[in-house]
């Protein structure tokens, strides 16, 4: 089983003339860590939205853990997303009025599969993940997310993506708000935890200095025939 398989994907934003995405082929094996780089505005985020099933794609174009995203209807895609995919954004990943711990547990609240895979004690699993990512301080964990530093927030977001061992983790430039030292540490931790959870990782960035942390690296411009 492949964590992700993209074949002959084309996608147009409504109203746009050219296809933002035209991807003949992209595959991630189970647990594989893939680095996808390219300049701003070339369509990287759009690709992640398509994989996450937030935008409409044609049936057969995207398979996540052997499930055809394009064949699912709206509600089913939302459920499928949380069951199989963990996501990390660039900034503002957390619900500000929930604590760090509650933010981590959000996928378990919306998905039975993630809840089941988080083990007997989801809160314990969340604490363990936060600890692995360097957030073991109990008072820190129960603070409202809005009171954490940006670096801490990104690590909480990583823990949320990882909890319940989803098949695929999509990370959209999660390090762009971090300083150099924090970047490398964050990617290291994320890579290690993905390996631990057995999740494949598709890490998107314009910053090639992070390339060496990954199994494979792909040039988005070369991959995407559609980009102008």
């Amino acid at each position, binding site marked *: 089983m492949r964590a992700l398989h993209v074949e002959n994907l084309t996608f147009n934003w409504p109203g746009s003339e050219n296809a933002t995405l035209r991807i003949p082929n992209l595959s991630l094996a189970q647990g594989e860590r893939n680095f996808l780089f390219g300049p701003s505005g070339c369509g990287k*985020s*759009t690709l*992640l*939205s398509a994989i*996450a099933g*937030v*935008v409409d794609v044609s049936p057969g174009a995207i398979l996540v853990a052997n499930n055809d995203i394009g064949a699912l209807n*709206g*509600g089913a895609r*939302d*459920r499928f*997303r*949380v*069951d199989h995919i963990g*996501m990390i*954004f660039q*900034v*503002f*990943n*957390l*619900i*500000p*009025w*929930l604590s760090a711990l509650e933010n981590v547990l*959000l*996928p378990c*609240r*919306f*998905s039975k599969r993630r809840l089941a895979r988080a083990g007997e004690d989801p809160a314990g699993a969340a604490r363990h993940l936060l600890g692995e990512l360097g957030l073991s301080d109990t008072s820190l964990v129960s603070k409202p997310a809005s009171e954490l530093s940006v670096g801490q927030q990104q690590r909480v977001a990583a823990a*949320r993506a990882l909890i319940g061992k989803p098949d695929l983790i999509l990370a959209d430039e999660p390090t762009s708000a971090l300083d150099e030292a924090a970047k490398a540490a964050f990617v290291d931790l994320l890579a290690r935890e993905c390996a631990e959870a057995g999740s494949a990782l598709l890490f998107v960035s314009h910053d090639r200095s992070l390339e060496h942390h990954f199994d494979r690296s792909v040039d988005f411009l070369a991959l995407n025939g559609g980009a102008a």
Partner: protein
Amino acid sequence: MLVFSLRSLWNRRFVAGLTVLAISLSVALILGVERLRDGARDSFANSASGIDLIVAPRGNPVQILMATVFGVGGTGTGMTWDSFEWLEDRPEVAWAVPIQMGDNHRGYPVIGTDASYFEHFRHSGGQPLTLAAGTILTGDGADAAVVGAEVAARFDYAPGALIVNAHGSGEVSFELHDDAPFTISGVLEPTGTAVDRMVFVTLEGFDALHAEEDAPAADPLDPAAMPTDDHDGHDDHGEHEGTEAKHSHEPDRINAVYVGLIDRTNVLGLQRAVNERPSDALSAVLPAVALAELWGITGTAERAMQLMAWAVALAGMIGMVVMLSATLDTRRREFAILRSVGATPNRIVALIVAEAAILTAAGLILGLVLLTAATFVIDPILSARFGLRSGLNVFGMRELATLFLIFWAGLFASLIPAVRVYRMTLADGLSVRL
């Protein structure tokens, strides 16, 4: 979901609190106006229950009712004792109670009447007046007085206490009849009607006050002895009609008569007979008809109050919609995150609607609390001033319906931000551009 909405609202507790306050004020106002109106109507209707006809010098029926039953305002110049005896002797009349008015005791109306008042007056669906202490006016002498529960409580009166009345019906009067005191013979049980704020004296005693005015040289130490001598000349009114035994004292003029009929269906015939009586210009007032007329007059003010209350409710709802809508833009990110962890657009709409439901429900509950608190504060004042009580009514069906209506209005109003948020989440997906 509800817990989630609660947490989200708690995060914005200041604005949420203000919204709840606005809704609760409107709820308290709407229900308060209704209760006040119902309380007034019940109290008025109760005060007049059991009286089939009020006969008084010719005048406006509402004015006559207000004066004779509620002690507010006055009637025209007095009717003659002749007319009273004529009424009493009519075949369709079961009983007739003479009423004299125009004095006050420390702002409370003083009624001159006789023991038949206590025998025939009915309130609150047919209950007779009962004494909390002492005796009623019979056999207590001309200076006896019976006080309503409110008056007794306010001034700490008990049988045996001496009281002094004043001329006129105003709150403040300097013209005290302090040379003609009364001795309280009885205190009535509370009725929740105007009777609670009345002072009853004998016809003889009532006349004595005014006799004092006419004859200042009279012996102030023996007020009870005065009137019988002074009014000797009026006794012949009764003599030729042969009813002198019924009334120990026959005043020259009285202000009104409460009439009870043997058969109520004769009420219109009697009314006509009274109106056509040539010797005296009289009006016969049907209490129910006069009340209906009164509510017709006050109805406009009531509707204005109700309209105001509902306008406040509308303002509260608009406030809630504004609050929910205003935060949507800053919460776009929040919704995108929820979507990324599997929340469907419907779920996010439900979040907004649940927030509205919580705000409205909290507003309803706080409104009821406010109303109850206000009732505790205002009721004694209303009761002292007007003898009416809005009452800590048990929840009526209509109130329940009002609350439901407001709740549904709240949910309905929340559809405005909800529809917006639905469109927004679909358009934004996970990629909110910052």
